């Protein structure tokens, strides 16, 4: 079996992910912050420790502003639906995932929010000048995909906040976090949204967002928090304001395991390893006649994640995906929930195949995969 769908979710997970998850479910299991007993307190400690570690991981210190969610999509929904008001304008790019585009479409119908999606190059790069031109007096937010889930293109965010000015800069770091340094002070994001189950190695069902001080979001959910129980008014303080109901504590425990693993291995080691696999994969695929790899070329200093969208000339991605699946090689096919990104790349409506190795992918796996694509291309 060769799993090359790590951009969707990482698999396998490190031993620490499973150990922390197992330890929580076996030994703790309480509802965090809901009772005065030891198991409830221990559960709350797991969340607190994860919150602190994750906050430091993104270069911040105020851990109460780090909000746990179910996934990257929920984080982006919280940011967009919580921030935008009737008549606001948003600037985004034509490389976004549907977790940005669909909330924006909803808001355009329900709250008369307008948006401008600026074009990107066929390799997926954004020109900051296009953002500048798209800004209006009523632009309340700018939403940018940090790393494409289609082409792996990493958007340099240098200078973006300067261009954006007063508007809230929301960065979707679902693909980049855990693959490269994502430091909120460096990229100057106002809200950072990401998932835990991709390159942070948690199990599925965990995401987060960090909301900088001074930004007020209307919560998406209201309910029990274990705090101020005498009041029927929802709390105004963080993190309780944005987190209610029983959280996914086992998932958050697994995220603590994932972060512990990353700390032990070193982010630099993980980056180097995945970049070596990326080069091997892209070069291997590009050497096959009739295979086109999208993106993975660009100006000096351009960087790409280990995510390669490709097609075999004259073949539907679904047919090639079927052939690969028969060989127990698992890639993603289609539009990857990002139709506009495929329009940008020129692969709409058929989409593409997408191979995304992970930290545990072997060089042999890449060689075998490239050989299989060569074989299928020759049929």
């Amino acid at each position: 079996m060769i799993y090359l769908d790590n951009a969707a979710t990482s698999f396998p997970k490190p031993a620490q992910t499973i150990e922390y998850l197992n330890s929580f479910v076996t030994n703790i299991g309480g509802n965090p912050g809901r009772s005065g007993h030891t198991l409830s307190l221990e559960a709350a400690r797991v969340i607190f420790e994860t919150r602190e570690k994750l906050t430091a991981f993104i270069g911040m210190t105020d851990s109460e502003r780090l909000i746990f969610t179910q996934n990257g999509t929920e984080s982006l929904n919280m940011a967009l639906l919580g921030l935008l008001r009737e008549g606001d304008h948003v600037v985004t790019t034509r490389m976004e995932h549907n977790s940005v585009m669909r909330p924006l479409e909803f808001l355009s119908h329900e709250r008369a929010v307008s948006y401008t999606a600026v074009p990107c190059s066929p390799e997926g790069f954004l020109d900051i000048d296009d953002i500048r031109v798209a800004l209006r007096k009523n632009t309340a937010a700018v939403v940018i995909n940090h790393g494409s889930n289609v082409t792996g293109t990493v958007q340099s965010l240098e200078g973006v906040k300067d261009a954006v000015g007063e508007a809230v800069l929301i960065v979707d770091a679902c693909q980049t976090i855990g693959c490269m340094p994502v430091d909120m002070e460096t990229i100057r994001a106002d809200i950072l949204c990401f998932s835990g189950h991709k390159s942070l190695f948690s199990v599925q069902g965990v995401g987060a967002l960090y909301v900088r001080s001074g930004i007020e979001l209307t919560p998406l959910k209201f309910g029990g928090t274990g705090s101020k129980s005498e009041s029927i008014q929802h709390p105004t303080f963080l993190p309780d304001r944005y987190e209610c109901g029983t959280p996914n504590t086992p998932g958050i425990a697994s995220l603590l395991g994932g972060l512990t693993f990353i700390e032990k291995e070193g982010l630099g080691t993980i980056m180097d390893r995945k970049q070596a696999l990326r080069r091997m994969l892209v070069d291997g695929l590009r050497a096959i006649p009739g295979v086109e790899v999208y993106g993975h070329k660009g100006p000096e200093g351009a960087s790409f994640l280990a995510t390669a969208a490709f097609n075999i000339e004259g073949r539907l991605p679904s047919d090639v995906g079927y052939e690969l699946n028969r060989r127990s090689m698992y890639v993603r096919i289609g539009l990857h929930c990002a139709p506009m990104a495929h329009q940008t790349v020129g692969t709409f409506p058929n989409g593409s195949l997408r191979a995304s190795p992970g930290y545990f992918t072997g060089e042999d796996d890449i060689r075998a995969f490239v050989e299989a694509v060569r074989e299928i291309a020759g049929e």
Partner: protein
Amino acid sequence: MPENKAFILLFRSIHDVLRAEKMLKKQGVPHELVPVPRNLSSDCGMCIRLDSDATEIRRGLGGMEIDRSFAFDGENYEQIEL
């Protein structure tokens, strides 16, 4: 103020309780996490009990926001400004 045996500190959230705990540990201020006494709050969570003096507690918490503070003489709680 009654003769004080302990201070009871209530925080807004379990996050703040654990943050306070972390700071007190770091500063070496002895403390204990205990369930919030029912007569102080309807909250079902935890609070912090300390036997140190007020100056020591303030130093340990480094200006962190406390929801409510009480002096406890073994029988009665008196709300105080710490």
